[in-house]
């Protein structure tokens, strides 16, 4: 169940009550584990078996790696084949069948594909990557196999980050399972305040301001004029940030109320200076995963400049495909791969002229953000033709729209103002940690902020039940 539902509020209240009522730490962890399965079952109870299978399978593989070190490589391959196989069937099965059918038809073979409707288990990409990271780390001797099955099961099924991350490493989570988490009112309150901030980002900024405009423009790009097209691009750029960052903040918040710390997933991404910088600030847990388990495994930047470029391109294209079975995601990944490669070249040439001053950084950050925003077009567009139409409209070379789009001018202005505010906020807090920043506020300011956010959620929330964008990945 998403965090912005009444069901979650009741579920979470019951979890907190149950969790802190149980005095025994092992029982508490078992309770949390059970809650994770219940949380997952709220989407489709059948797929809980997949989660349990994934947990049992990788637990056994890791144990066998320790018992039979001579077979480590075979076990690693087996685990990766099974994990990626499941991901492949559920996530890419339909696309592969469709592509195969198209090629077969093109080659003159009348192949009729089976008419299966494959239902994508929610969050499969996240927990598969999480269990894969555990197995690879055990293989690389970076971590020891988990001592307790319960701890490992909790690591996989921990409900705050189960369906949309952040993708947690075992060495970040398992040590936290060793000691009991005492009831700490201030810590729980801090978590609840973060939850309010996360919900505000999702309900008000993403669903209330950004999503309506983004939906109109991206659903009917042919009817947009140049100003509306730019507005739509900014709206989706804002929507995806507030949606995903809001979700992650809720996940961190829920974990914190239970005494656990999850890794940060966003660090002022729209204040980035360059694309490499962006990828160290956007969906950090996925970027880290791709870097450590894919980019470095391919050789990283250790071999040659050309090989580095190839590795970057492969990493980013697979990162794009991770988001879903669509050629547009692959294109989005390729665009980012190209940007990273180009940036490396520019850096080499322009480094002597660069000075770390506002005069240089503001235009560079602005340029980075504009290009990042434009790169979201293939990510959000429904088809390649829609993407082309929108790109043409952005530069004013499309045919005139036949139907006028009905966009509330006030909402459109709010999109632009909110995005400018977001950029400014991100740029000027590039080096400052969000959590440290809010902790420095005085008690009265905290009260004022949380009250205002809660009141705005109450007054302007509801009436829209958009799911979190990243649940589909």
């Amino acid at each position, binding site marked *: 169940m998403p965090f912005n539902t009444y*069901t979650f509020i009741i579920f979470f209240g019951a979890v907190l009550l149950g969790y802190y009522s149980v005095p025994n730490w092992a029982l508490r962890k078992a309770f949390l584990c059970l809650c994770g399965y219940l949380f997952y079952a709220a989407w489709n109870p059948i797929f809980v078996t997949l989660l349990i299978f994934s947990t049992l399978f990788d637990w056994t593989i890791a144990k066998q790696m320790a018992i039979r070190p001579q077979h480590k490589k075979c076990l690693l391959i087996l685990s990766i084949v099974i994990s990626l196989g499941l991901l492949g069937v559920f996530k890419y099965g339909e696309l592969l069948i469709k592509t195969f059918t198209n090629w077969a038809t093109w080659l003159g073979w009348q192949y009729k594909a089976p008419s299966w409707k494959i239902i994508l288990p929610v969050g499969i990409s996240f927990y598969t990557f999480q269990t894969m990271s555990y197995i690879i780390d055990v293989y690389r001797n970076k971590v020891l196999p988990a001592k307790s099955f319960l701890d490992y099961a909790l690591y996989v099924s921990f409900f705050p980050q189960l369906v949309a991350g952040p993708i947690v490493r075992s060495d970040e989570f398992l040590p936290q399972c060793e000691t009991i988490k005492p009831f700490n009112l*201030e810590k729980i309150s801090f978590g609840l305040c973060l939850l309010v901030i996360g919900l505000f980002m999702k309900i008000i900024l993403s669903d209330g301001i950004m999503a309506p405009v983004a939906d109109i423009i991206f659903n009917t790009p042919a009817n947009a004029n140049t100003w509306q097209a730019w507005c739509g691009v900014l709206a989706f750029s804002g929507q995806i940030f507030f949606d995903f960052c809001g979700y992650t903040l809720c996940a961190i918040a829920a974990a914190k109320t239970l005494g656990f710390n999850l890794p940060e997933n966003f660090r002022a991404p729209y204040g980035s200076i360059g694309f490499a*910088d962006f990828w160290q600030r956007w969906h950090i847990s996925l970027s880290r995963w791709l870097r450590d388990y894919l980019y470095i495994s391919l050789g990283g*930047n250790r071999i040659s400049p050309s090989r580095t470029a190839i590795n970057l391109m492969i990493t980013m294209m697979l990162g794009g495909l991770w988001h879903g079975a669509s050629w547009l995601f692959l294109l989005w990944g390729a665009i980012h791969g190209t940007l*990273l490669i180009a940036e490396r070249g520019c850096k080499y040439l322009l480094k002597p002229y660069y000075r770390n001053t506002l005069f240089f950084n503001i235009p560079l950050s602005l340029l980075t953000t504009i290009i990042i925003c434009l790169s979201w077009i293939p990510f959000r567009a429904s088809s390649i033709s829609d993407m082309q139409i929108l790109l043409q409209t952005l530069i004013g070379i499309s045919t005139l729209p036949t139907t006028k789009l009905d966009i509330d001018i006030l909402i459109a202005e709010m999109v632009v103002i909110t995005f400018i505010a977001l950029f400014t906020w991100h740029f000027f807090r590039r080096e400052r940690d969000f959590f440290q920043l809010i902790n420095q506020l005085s008690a009265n300011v905290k009260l004022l902020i949380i*009250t205002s956010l809660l009141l705005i959620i109450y*007054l302007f929330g509801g009436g829209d039940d958009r799911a979190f964008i990243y649940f589909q990945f």
Partner: protein
Amino acid sequence: MTAPLSTSNSESKSQPDFFDDKPWSLAIIGSIFIVLVIILFFEYNLRSRHWTPTVSDSPELWAQERARASQLGKKALILIGGSRIQLGIDLNELEKLSGKKPVQLAIDGANFYPVLKNIAEDPQILGDSILDLNENSIPKLFAIDKGSDWVAAYERQQQQPLYRRVDQQLHNTLTSLMITKMEGAKPAKVINDLVFHPKQNTGSYLITHSNRSRDADYSKVKMPDFYINRVIRHSLLNLPTETANSYQQVLDIYAAEISNIPQADQQIFEKNLVELLLLINIIEKRGSKVIILRMPTSKLILAMDKQRCPIDLCWQKIITQHPASINSVLEPSLSGFYLPDGSHLDQKDKKQFTNSLYHALTLLH
């Protein structure tokens, strides 16, 4: 520019504990308290202006009740039809009298046939049904309107994740308790419209409860305008009334034209009645009863109904083929109720009407 996609793995692992027991409890407890006080203030303010909570009678709410009809099995008493049965039956009273769980599946302003068909096609429906049937609706039995859309919404809802269905129920419950969330609207809009820019201080005449029963309080509407509008809508005529100097003259213009309203084609009526009875037969084969109930109408509305499909002729055909039928116009215990708009019962008569109807039903058995 900053570092490229790095090969180092040295950054901090998990988000550290920053709060160091800094005071956050004041912020969360204080803010929840303040917001609750604000909500209570507006709720009290609106209640003092005679507003009451009302949910939105939406396809989602209907789908929720439709699912309940399947779940309840033999315990269900399903009400099908239109606004008349939705406004005229007191569900609590009916439950008390019958010992069954009433499920309100009537849809305001919609054809009942898609609902009846959906019920007939579901083998899990084992409860008895009361079908609010006006003889005039039979010639238009296959009209496509929101009845079909709501049935489709139910079928879609069955595919939705479990949490969505639970959340819908919680949303409806909350809406039925809070005026500031009236009909699922954003509280900002409700507060702005009803507190800061009120056009009236009498509250809404129509309230929808979370079980989809509705209360109409006609003391809150302007009469006879409301009745005249009902007559105009029901007549399907667009008569010139510019010359009328009073409400009575408007009514007189329409009354004079009643005889010009075309009668229903009896061949179509009979053909459609057969189709209708086929569905009823399917339901009854499962051991459930289907009672046809003609809800009361009066004044010019009844006159128009009689013109389109004379009761003696049409109703006779229905009762001959389906004896488990009650006509409120012909039943002495049900015909005496005052219908302010000629078509619907006022909330104050609901309970009494339900009582009388239940006794009429027991006599029928």
